[in-house]
């Protein structure tokens, strides 16, 4: 996977580049809006990380212009502005995801991994499979080893999101955003309890654990190994 980071703070950019490379991602870096737009339109990337406030050119206008040219490379906006309205403007300009500074790198990495692989898109698939766990998106039925597992609507949506991104780290914030449509962090960690309830339903009577906890980051659905 290859991504472009458009970020004017050189220290942050260097830290991000190093961390992404360690995670096996190729990184290009631009330190102002103009060169960022140039690189993004000349090369092909799997994802863009765009700082919102940049010298020479605003981050949102870069994304808007790329979209205007028919370039739909997924873009994640990094911003110090974290309020509801800011996120809405960011997403309206064509951003695919929005992360408020300061953020944990694990959060950024998880989101970029998912954005970068999204090009292949799993939205069309009607059945998700992880190991012997099967989720039918048309009938909303979940089976493991052929045996039906009854789930509450919210549990179903939680599992659907996890399975859609199987093999990827999904953070608690991402779950709150996509399953509950909450764009803030509740003070207590409410997600973990939901996960353990779900886990008990899909794993209790079956051998292999599928829903793993990734320490310091989030959760991942994965079979085998």
């Amino acid at each position: 996977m290859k991504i472009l980071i458009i970020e004017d703070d050189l220290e942050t950019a260097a830290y991000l580049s190093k961390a992404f490379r360690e995670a096996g991602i190729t990184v290009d870096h631009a330190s102002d809006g103009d060169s960022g737009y140039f690189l993004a339109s000349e090369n092909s990337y799997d994802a863009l990380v765009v700082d919102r406030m940049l010298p020479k050119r605003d981050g949102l206008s870069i994304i808007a212009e790329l979209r205007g040219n028919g370039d739909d490379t997924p873009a994640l906006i990094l911003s110090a502005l974290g309020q509801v309205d800011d996120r809405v403007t960011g997403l309206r300009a064509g951003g695919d995801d929005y992360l408020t500074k300061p953020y944990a790198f694990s959060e950024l990495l998880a989101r970029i991994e998912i954005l970068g692989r999204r090009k292949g898109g799993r939205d069309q698939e009607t059945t998700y499979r992880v190991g012997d766990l099967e989720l039918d998106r048309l009938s909303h039925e979940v089976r493991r080893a052929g045996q039906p597992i009854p789930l509450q609507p919210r549990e179903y949506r939680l599992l659907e999101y996890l399975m859609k991104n199987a093999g990827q780290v999904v953070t608690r914030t991402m779950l709150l955003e996509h399953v509950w449509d909450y764009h803030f962090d509740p003070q207590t960690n409410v997600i973990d309890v939901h996960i353990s309830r779900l886990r008990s339903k899909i794993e209790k009577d079956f051998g292999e654990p599928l829903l793993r906890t990734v320490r310091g980051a989030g959760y991942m659905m994965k079979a085998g190994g």
Partner: protein
Amino acid sequence: MSRLRAMLSTTAVRLSALYLGLFALCAIALVFYVTAISEGMQRDRTQNAIADELRVVATAYRRSGVAGLVRVIERRSRQPGANLYAIAMPTGDLIAGNIAALQPGVLDQEGWTTLPFRYQRNGDTADEQHRALAQVVFLPNGMRLMVGRDIGEREQVRGLVRQALVIALAIMFAGALAIWFFVGRRALKRIDHMSEASKKILAGDLAQRLPVNGSGDEFDRLSLSLNAMLGRIERLNEGLRQVSDNIAHDLKTPLTRLRNRAEAALAGDGGGDSHREALEQMIADSDQLIRTFNALLMISRVESGSSTAQMSDVDLSGLASDAAELYEPLAEEQGIRLTARIEPGVTIRGNRELLAQALSNLIDNAVKYADGGETPEIAVTLTRERGEVRLAVTDNGPGIPPDRREDVVKRFVRLDESRSKPGTGLGLSLVQAVAALHGGTLQLHDASPEDRDNPGLAVIMVLPGEK
């Protein structure tokens, strides 16, 4: 002088000058019209009277010839207030009547004189002259008969009317000047007061207000709306000041703690494990700081009202049951029974995310502080009554003593002095700000006042219902 100029340039003065000018024009036009009409009427009347006299005189002439005519004329001439009469020879010499001299040429033409002419009456001095209109008749023997009427009185009346007009205009003008002076000076004085007050405000005295004299005029209305604006600015400013105070007090402490931890880890000779532990602790500390910081920013943003733009129709029933559902497993894990009693179909105009966060803060607090009792319970309720929507989170814990309830909504106030529970001390402040943004209030009550030991706490967001 400049004050006079300033006064002349006030709107009131300009308007009244314009008004005065228009009024004067109309008055002059009216007077001319009225005098013209009344003169016409008077002339007609004069002519009718003269024609009547001529008829009488003509009858006398037909009956008794020139001698009778002269007799009638002489008699009429002597009557008080008589018209003008003259009988003249064809040469123009006057032989009877009450006229001593005539403007030459008047008797040369039969019929009405086209213009007023000058004449002298019997007994007038040489330089006394009058003006008159008359009808001249040529008698069959060549003599001329003239019957006329003095028009001096008419001209006098016209003069009087015009004079009255001039006096009236002069009085009006003087009056307008006086009113200008009074109104203009009054207006200027009030504007001076206002600009004095605004100078004080500019200089930093935000408690200053523009003067309102209670008359309810346009100055008062302007002052009132400017004062409302000032009040809002003052509140915002106060909020900002409070935030910076808070930052000074409550963010410095954890920052210092963070710094100390780093220093201790650096100085310590522990191996990789203790360093790792210290670093993890520091990340947790900074996360807490970030959370505090975000909450502060969010509160001031909500209080400034800039999120109002993001208002939409919010399904409050759905929002409340979602929040209850989100927290239910967590509560259960801690042995708390969380129940929801939610009236369906309640919609209000609002900001969904802020309302969700406010409610989540309330449930979060309840979960944190309600676990003291024997069988801890939390209830999330949504009811609608008399146009109000009440979104409440109730617990059966130890509650909050009435005298502390005002404090807990203040920023960074935590009743838990030991600060053993995690939290920023900002949760209720945000809830209150969100309630205020939606035009509502935040109320704190005992949940069950009859239970002395565990009265519980009911935190209620009272929001205006749909219109």
